């Protein structure tokens, strides 16, 4: 701040003469004390004159934080001989011992909150740890994990697993009851044929299971009103949908792996071996079928608020096969085209193993008519068609959820 200012009442206040204050005139008779303080009432005031008897001492002290020169603090007059002044210059202006090192580090962050211990403000407590929204991929995984946690707490999944155990047992009981000739109508007399027959309910079970697991993923979010919580989180709907779908897919695959295991155990009770190549092929076809069925059910669920599971199951089990049978019967479709249809993949998985029967209209017709020749199954073509369908279904489903207004 410049001190060379004019007091409007008393003229030049610093006694300066010359260009500094832009005033002409005689110099003041005696030099005046410089103004040192600017008062808050916007007026300059002269500082009190020093006592005449006290000559002004040169500032020999330290420049203190309060803006005044002053003497350094006196050393302690009586220091214990065993405690030489080795301490630090403390902020309070005293010599003292350095603080003792902490004897025990805190084991963990104090429990409770900034509110209870008063250690910080709300803003400090939470804004200090700035969080970073996870990437879209991480959010898909998080949603997947949440959905898997939900499945783990639902009894329906465990009921399904128990059913998977029960079905082979029922078939094993039937084998004892049916004559051998009748048995061979439905399956080859081999270990693989036995597995195929034990899994012959797969077309129906897969449609049922994927419809209720994957078809209800999105509708249940709306009927249970949890979507209003999830979709208001900083997460894209794409992450939300894909995370949930992946969980449904994994659960479905897990259930059918379990079913395969049970069927193999059932087969080994009657036969010493089975065709591993056919079993591998059947398993790959089952994976493709699971992809197709689950994505279709998921897509149906994205469009509907209620009843998606039922519509999806009926479509997969009855409507699609009946239409295909109609087209085949009227020569709109030949056997080669029939084998390319992804919705018949569960039937194919059973037939590849040597079963002649599968629990769907096409599979049942095949028992007597011989619609499908498993040895001619074009797996690569079917793989491509299935993947295209899955991508299409998921895209449509996510698009529908994105467009969905709540």
């Amino acid at each position: 701040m410049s001190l060379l200012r004019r007091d409007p009442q008393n003229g030049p206040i610093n006694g300066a003469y010359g260009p500094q204050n832009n005033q002409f005139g005689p110099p003041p008779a005696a030099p005046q004390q410089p103004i040192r303080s600017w008062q808050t009432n916007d007026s300059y005031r002269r500082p009190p004159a020093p006592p005449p008897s006290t000559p002004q001492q040169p500032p020999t002290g330290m420049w203190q934080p309060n803006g005044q020169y002053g003497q350094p603090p006196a050393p302690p007059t009586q220091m214990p001989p065993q405690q030489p002044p080795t301490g630090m210059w403390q902020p309070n202006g005293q010599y003292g011992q350095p603080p003792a090192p902490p004897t025990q580090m805190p084991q963990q962050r104090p429990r409770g909150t900034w509110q209870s211990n008063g250690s910080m403000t709300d803003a400090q407590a939470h804004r200090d740890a700035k969080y970073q929204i996870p990437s879209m991929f991480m959010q898909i995984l998080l949603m997947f994990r949440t959905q898997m946690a939900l499945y783990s707490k639902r009894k329906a999944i465990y009921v399904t697993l128990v059913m998977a155990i029960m079905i082979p047992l029922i078939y094993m009981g039937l084998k004892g009851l049916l004559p051998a000739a009748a048995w061979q109508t439905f399956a080859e007399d081999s270990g693989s044929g036995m597995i195929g027959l034990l899994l012959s309910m797969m077309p129906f079970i897969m449609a049922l299971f994927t419809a209720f697991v994957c078809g209800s993923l999105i509708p249940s979010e709306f009927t249970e009103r949890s979507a209003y919580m999830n979709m208001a989180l900083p997460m894209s709907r794409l992450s939300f949908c894909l995370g949930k779908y992946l969980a449904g897919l994994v659960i479905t695959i897990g259930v059918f792996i379990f079913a395969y295991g049970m069927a193999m155990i059932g087969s080994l009770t009657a036969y010493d071996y089975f065709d591993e190549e056919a079993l591998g092929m059947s398993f790959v076809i089952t994976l493709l079928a699971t992809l197709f069925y689950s994505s279709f059910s998921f897509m149906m669920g994205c469009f509907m608020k209620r009843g998606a599971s039922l519509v999806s199951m009926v479509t997969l089990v009855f409507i699609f096969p009946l239409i295909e049978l109609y087209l085949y019967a009227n020569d709109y479709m030949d056997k080669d085209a029939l084998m390319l249809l992804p919705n018949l993949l569960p039937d194919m998985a059973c037939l590849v193993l040597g079963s002649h029967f599968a629990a769907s209209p096409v599979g049942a017709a095949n028992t007597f008519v011989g619609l499908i020749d498993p040895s001619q199954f074009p797996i690569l073509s079917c793989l491509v068609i299935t993947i295209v369908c899955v991508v299409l279904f998921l895209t449509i489903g996510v698009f529908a959820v994105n467009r969905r207004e709540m």
Partner: protein
Amino acid sequence: MGLLGPNGAGKSTTLKAVTGLLKPTSGEIRIQGVDIRDHRLALQHVGSVIETPMPYGEFTPADLLYHVGRMYGLDKRETSIRSRDVLEEMKLWDWRYKKIDGFSKGMKQRVVLAQALLPNPEIIILDEPTSGLDPRGMVEIREILRGLKKRDCSLLISTHILSEVSELCGSVTMIRDGRAILSGDVSELLNGIGRGVTLEIKMLRDVDERLIRNLSGCEGVTEVDSMGSHVIKVVFNGTPEQQSHLITVAYNSGLGLMSVNETGRNLESLYMELTEGGSVA
């Protein structure tokens, strides 16, 4: 900021659009400068409770908060610490390992509020947080809402509890048919028009014409209504001396002055005037 309006006015629709649950038919919405179409970034510092969501019934509050915390990008330890904070704040700490399915509606609502507060968002959006609750649940939530005022955050709330709005909110917007009909500071709205106070004067004996005439003649009195045989409602907009004189007139009427109840102009009366014709909330 409080959002008020009758049923169908567009309160929930507005909040849904703000949180990205609905797409606006026109215009754009930005939160802290980020377009809401970029859902992840726009909502990263927002906690919301829209349309009374229900948390997963199979989950416990601890499970749910873990899911939400991880979704916001909090690590496991931070999620755990903050979960404890908010569960204690919501008085749910002892219930943290119980399934939400078994909770009452008020407790579920507290769980939902806990997930909204978990990341300590800079903006909290609440859509009728006391909707559908019994009186006890409403009292619980009301206490929590009072606690929110201490937080260093912006609060956008739509509620039909007008007293809460006037207590919690610094500003209020009243909407009707999708349009804002009044917006501003609560105290300015209440005091700006200067309609005075309403005095309810209760007499021991039946009110007669003479008393009503005398009261009407007092300075500052703008309206006198008889409410039943013993109570008179006086709308008064005058000085304290004039108000004192008015009470003296009632006292000297010989009908036995029992009580004088003064009510100021409140948000409810303003709200009812502006939304006349629509039901509350």
